[in-house]
C-alpha cells in the first residue's frame, strides 16, 4: 500500500462550480495527480483560514481553493467575500515568509473540467518543485 510519498495537496472546492468542474474532469477522463485530494464545501466563502492552516499543520504541502467565477456564485456574493479573505490571508502568509506558491485560489466553473485538471496539474507541479512544506509544519503530525 505504500506509494511514494508525494507532496500532498488539499483542494477546497465549492459544491456548485468547482466540485462539479472536478466531476466533469473525471467524466472527461482528464488525469491530474492523485495527490490532490478534494474537500467539498458549499461555497468558497465557507473556507475558513483555520482550515487552510490546519491542512498545513496536518502535513499538506499545498492548499488550493476553488470557487465559482466572480459574479457566478450560486449564493450570489460568497466568492466575493472569499476573494477578500483569501487575498489577505495569502498576503499574510507571504509576509511571514511562507512560500507564496503554496497556496492558490482559482475560479473554476462547472463547465471547466479541463481547466480544473490543468489547474491541479500545474499546482501539483509547482508544489512538487517547492517540495515538502517546512515552514508551516507540525512535526507531531508527521510521525
Amino acid at each position, binding site marked *: 500500500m505504500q506509494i511514494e510519498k508525494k507532496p500532498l495537496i488539499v483542494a477546497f472546492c465549492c459544491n456548485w462550480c468547482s466540485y462539479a468542474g472536478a466531476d466533469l474532469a473525471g467524466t472527461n477522463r482528464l488525469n491530474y495527480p492523485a495527490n490532490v485530494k478534494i474537500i467539498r464545501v458549499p461555497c468558497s466563502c465557507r473556507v475558513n483560514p483555520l482550515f487552510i492552516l490546519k491542512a498545513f499543520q*496536518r*502535513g499538506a504541502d499545498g492548499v488550493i481553493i476553488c470557487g465559482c467565477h466572480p459574479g457566478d456564485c450560486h449564493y450570489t456574493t460568497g466568492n466575493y467575500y472569499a476573494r477578500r479573505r483569501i487575498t489577505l490571508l495569502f498576503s499574510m502568509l507571504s509576509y511571514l515568509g511562507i512560500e507564496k506558491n503554496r497556496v492558490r485560489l482559482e475560479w473554476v466553473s462547472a463547465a471547466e473540467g479541463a481547466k480544473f485538471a490543468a489547474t491541479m496539474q500545474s499546482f501539483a507541479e509547482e508544489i512538487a518543485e517547492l517540495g515538502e512544506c517546512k515552514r508551516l509544519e*507540525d512535526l*507531531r*503530525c508527521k*510521525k
Partner: protein
Amino acid sequence: MKLVKDLSALYEAIAAVQELYLPVENKGRVDFKLYEAGANVDIKTLKTVRSAKDFFFTQTETLMGFKVEGKNIEVEDLRPEVRPFVAFGVRGCDARSFEVLDKVFLVDPVDTVYEARRKAGTVVTLACGRPEETCFCTNFGITPEAPAGDVTTWLTEEGLYWQANTDKGEALTAAIAAVFTEGDGKAVEEQKKAISDIIAKLPLANLDMTHLEGVKEETFWGHPVWKDISETCLACGTCTYVCPTCQCYDVRDFDCGNGIERFRCWDSCMYSDFTRMAHGNNRNTQDQRCRQRYLHKLVYFPRRNEGMFGCVGCGRCVAKCPSKLNIVKVIKALGGK
C-alpha cells in the same frame, strides 16, 4: 579562590563536557539558550524574561502517546531523554525557586520528568551585580550577593570567581579544571559589599510581611484588594508564565491524525478555564482567580511548607504585568488593612 579569566574558554570547556545553557541576548531581550560558539552571551543583564524554571519544568512536555492504527491503540512512552546539563548564570531568586518547585514536584507522588531533569542539571548561579528597583528577593531570605546553587560565581573586573558548593558542583569543577586560575577573592568581598549597599537602597527590599505570618487560609478572602485588582486585570498569563515559582500545568491531548500525544503545558490560574471540571469551575470570576493566585503564594503554600513563601521576589511580574498589577501591591494592600 578559583577564577576564570577567559569566559569563552569557560563556556567552551563546559559545553565540551555537558550541554550548557546560559543567558543569550536577542534584540535586547535575554533568555536562557543552549550555548553555541558565537552566541551573544549576556550575563550582565540581571533578569532573563522567562525564569529559570524552564530547565526543570518546561512550558510543554510530551508525556505519552497513543498510536492508533485501524482499531488498535498502542501506548507509547514519549518522555524525553534527559542528558546532563549545566544551567549557567542563574540568579539567586531563580535558584530559590527550584526549592519551591521541589516542594511540589519531588514530594510523593514524585514527578519523574521533573526529577530526571533536576538530577541531570547542575546549577551555576551568579551573584547579582546590579540589583534593580523591581527586586525584592531579600524579603524571602535570599542573598543575591552570594546565591545558592551547585556552584556560585561572581563576575568581577578580574574575571569570574567560581565556588563549588555541592558534589555536583565539585564534579563539574573537576571536569573543567583546566580553565581555572587562582584569585585572591578580594573582588568578591568587595562586590558582596557593593551589592548589600545597593540592596539597602532598593524600594521594595524591606516589605512588611508580618501580617502574613500564621494566618488562616480564609483570613483575606473578603479583602477588597481582589476586586480592585480584578477590575483591570486582563486575565492574561504573563505574571504566571514569567514567574519562576508558578507550577500549575494542564494535561492535554493533541490529535496528530495517526494518534494522540499527551502533553502537559503551563497553565495559569488567571485563565477562565483553569481547573475547569465536569461540573463547571471552582472560581468563576476574576477576583476569585486573582485571590487564588496571590493567596496561594503568600498563605496557602507557606502553610503547607514550613513557612516557605511561593514567591522569590524576582520582580518579573512587577516589570511585566500589562496592567501593572503585582504581588508587591497585594502584600502592601493586605498589610495596610
